[in-house]
């Protein structure tokens, strides 16, 4: 069941992205930025919580989970540390994704050459 739920959730979010890509003039860059904002907005209205309940891992794979985690971390930071928590806690939960992308991206760019 956990597999089917993850399949449906990630598949649906990807399909929405593809439909936007095909029917408008937006580039993939526009769409990923849009989806991060959408994730934060869904999280704000408490809708993302339902997606997490539907599939824990499936909801954390699409780029929308970035927005969700950023928003939740910022708000959590405010509750524990006050105003400064908004700034100091913002990137805490997304750190694994950002740091590993930068580190692996750098290492790969050192060891591999551009194909064209």
């Amino acid at each position, binding site marked *: 069941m*956990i*597999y089917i739920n*993850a*399949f*449906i*959730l*990630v*598949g*649906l*979010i*990807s*399909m929405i*992205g*593809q*439909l936007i*890509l*095909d029917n408008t003039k937006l580039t*993939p860059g526009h*769409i*990923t*930025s849009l989806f*991060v*904002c959408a994730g*934060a*907005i869904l999280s*704000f209205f408490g809708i993302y919580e339902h997606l997490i309940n539907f*599939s*824990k*891992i*499936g909801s*954390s*794979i699409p*780029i929308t*989970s970035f*927005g969700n985690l*950023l*928003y939740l*971390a*910022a*708000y959590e930071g*405010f509750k524990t540390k006050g105003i400064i928590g*908004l700034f100091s806690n*913002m*990137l805490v939960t997304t750190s*694994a*994704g*950002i740091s*590993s*992308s*930068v580190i*692996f*991206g*750098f290492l*790969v*760019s050192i*060891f*591999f*050459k*551009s*194909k064209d």
Partner: protein
Amino acid sequence: MNKADYKKMIKKYTPKEDVLKNALMAFVSGGVVGVISTIIYVIFLRFEFDVTSATSYTLVILILLSSLLTGIGCFDKLVEKFKCGIIIPITGFAHSITSSAIDSKKDGMITGIGASTFKLAGSVLLYGIVSAFILAIIKVVFYG
């Protein structure tokens, strides 16, 4: 032949991008990425990691895979086939960082890799952080 006729003819012979087929492809390939990550996640849970670390490990492994695929030049071919199914998951974010780092390698370490790594991924981070900040402020002001 006048302009309207010409446009009609162009329209007739331009290959139509099959929107429905693309959408279905994105659904299936996105779903497969979801299933693969669930398999990795379940393996980590088996080794008694807690839910949060298992999720983080899964993300890190997906990012490592897509960076390597970008490095050997496979990722662009996969995108052509699977469309948004691998752009929308975190693999697309890792790909955008790795590909801009590789493409700018010839310009040197600082002005090339250093300056261009976030060329594409920067917009995701910028708008993510700004929107999260604004929404958190709204939440704090109106709901406490």
